[in-house]
């Protein structure tokens, strides 16, 4: 019950917050095709978030809806990894983040599609396909930028370097995850191998940087975030909170 709920909330928050970041690209993308594609990825993640948060509200017995969870929790109650809340940066940074997230989350969903909870398993099974497309999209752009112009290659490398310290949190097991029957540490090797292959093909270097430090051992999964999440949520939640109890 509680562990499943907490776990669904973690995954749901990851999807929700990254969807919000993708949405911020809307009307700002470098090309119309990218407007379409980024909105598409955002829609996939939003869909996953809705199912996962709904499941969380059922499983913890509170009966909270997806909107209760999305709009009425405080910042420290969000359980997403810090990777997804970082500001978009330039297109290269956003692509690098997407590559890391999609590769890791795809691998996780693969594992979760055999999870004992049928709802989580079903979300994961559908998510595997969606994340495969996200990964393909991010890979294609990593190659184009990494092996495009010297300038784009520099920016792509800078994006990869900047986002890399946030990767480790995806592999760091939180007790809730272990109790929910998933050890994300098992993903580290295959994910790193896959990322390494993409970067190599793009002519980019795998950064040799340590993970972003925690705050006294606490990070996103514990509700201890970066300074980026507060302003994101302020905007995300403002209208819903201005009308408590209203239906939209």
């Amino acid at each position, binding site marked *: 019950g509680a562990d499943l709920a907490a776990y669904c909330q973690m995954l749901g928050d990851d999807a*929700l917050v990254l969807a*919000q970041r993708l*949405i*911020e690209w*809307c*009307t*700002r*993308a*470098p*090309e*119309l*095709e*990218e*407007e*379409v594609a980024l*909105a*598409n990825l*955002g*829609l996939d993640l*939003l*869909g996953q*978030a*809705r199912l996962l*948060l709904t499941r969380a509200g059922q499983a913890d017995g509170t009966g909270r809806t*997806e*909107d209760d969870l*999305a*709009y009425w929790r405080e910042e420290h109650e969000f359980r997403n990894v810090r990777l997804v809340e970082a500001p978009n940066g*330039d*297109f290269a940074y956003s692509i690098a983040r997407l590559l890391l997230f999609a590769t890791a989350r795809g691998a996780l969903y693969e594992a979760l599609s055999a999870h004992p909870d049928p709802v989580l398993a079903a979300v994961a099974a559908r998510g595997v396909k969606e994340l495969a497309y996200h990964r393909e999209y991010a890979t294609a752009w990593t*190659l*184009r*930028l990494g*092996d*495009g*112009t010297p*300038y*784009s*290659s520099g*920016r792509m490398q800078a994006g990869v370097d900047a986002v890399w310290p946030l990767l480790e949190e995806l592999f760091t097991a939180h007790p809730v995850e272990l109790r929910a029957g998933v050890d994300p540490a098992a993903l580290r090797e295959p994910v790193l191998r896959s990322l390494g292959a993409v970067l190599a093909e793009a002519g980019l270097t795998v950064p040799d940087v340590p993970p972003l430090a925690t705050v006294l051992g606490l990070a996103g999964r514990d509700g201890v975030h970066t300074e980026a999440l507060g302003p994101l949520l302020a*905007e*995300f939640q*403002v*209208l*819903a909170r201005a*009308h408590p*109890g*209203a*239906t*939209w």
Partner: protein
Amino acid sequence: MAETVPAQTLEDRFEAVVAAEQRIEPRDWMPDAYRATLIRQIAQHAHSEIIGMQPEGNWLTRAPSLRRKAILLAKAQDEAGHGLYLYAAAETLGVDRAELTEKLISGRQKYSSIFNYPTLTFADVGVIGWLVDGAAICNQVPLCRCSYGPYARAMVRICKEESFHQRQGYELLMTLMRGTEAQRRMVQDAVDRWWWPSLMMFGPSDADSPNTARSMAWRIKRHSNDELRRRFVDMTVPQAEHLGVTLPDPELRWNEERGGWDFGEPDWSELTRVIHGQGPCNAQRVERRRTAHEDGAWVREAAVAYAAKRAAEAAG
């Protein structure tokens, strides 16, 4: 290739195709003025789809439920898609998208002036769906039979999606009207602000629309501005009643004789100001599009360079 057909014959053939309600296709001969008119119209239409993402996009990050956020995001995505079809249709006439984008961001080509008004509350999202998409559909449905094939085919697909958007907008408004007092006030306020600009979407009254006749002869246009505007009002008044909102026009009354609604005259001087770039959001809309385009230049260049390398490899 050295085939030479007398211009008169070509023109006759063109006229015959048009008169027979058949389609002119990209490789067919067409009068220069027909081509120029279509390019301008399709480009403006494409620009409108793209700029039209902004007013509603303003609420994407703040949508008050996840369901509404998904609906709004899907709509923005559709609009980007419409822009793509339309630019592709324009390209069949021998212009390219980059050139049209340049014209948009340098202010040399227009887009629908309605998008130069701000979206101030979430009810605006619903009203844009209902009134603005509604007016667009009135304008666009006849274009599905436009004499130029690629444009007509693009419009078929676009109209289908637009009417879906319109229903979603109306459904949002129905939900708000069943909601709290604040939500209902929000809807009425949005209707007050968007009603007149929506009427102006059909363009100036027929007396001030000199090109209408030619466009109608070419079967690009099927109905006059005033005719479409009347059709829109007749369609919309009962929807407003059903919704429970008041349309902000004291002259609005049923004309038994005509079997339609009489309505007041929009403030054309305001439309003129907005068209000439002084609208509340003209500068902001074009600036956003220009910034996105300029910030993305290095990305597009990288894609071109990458494609060239792959092509060279394949060739070599």
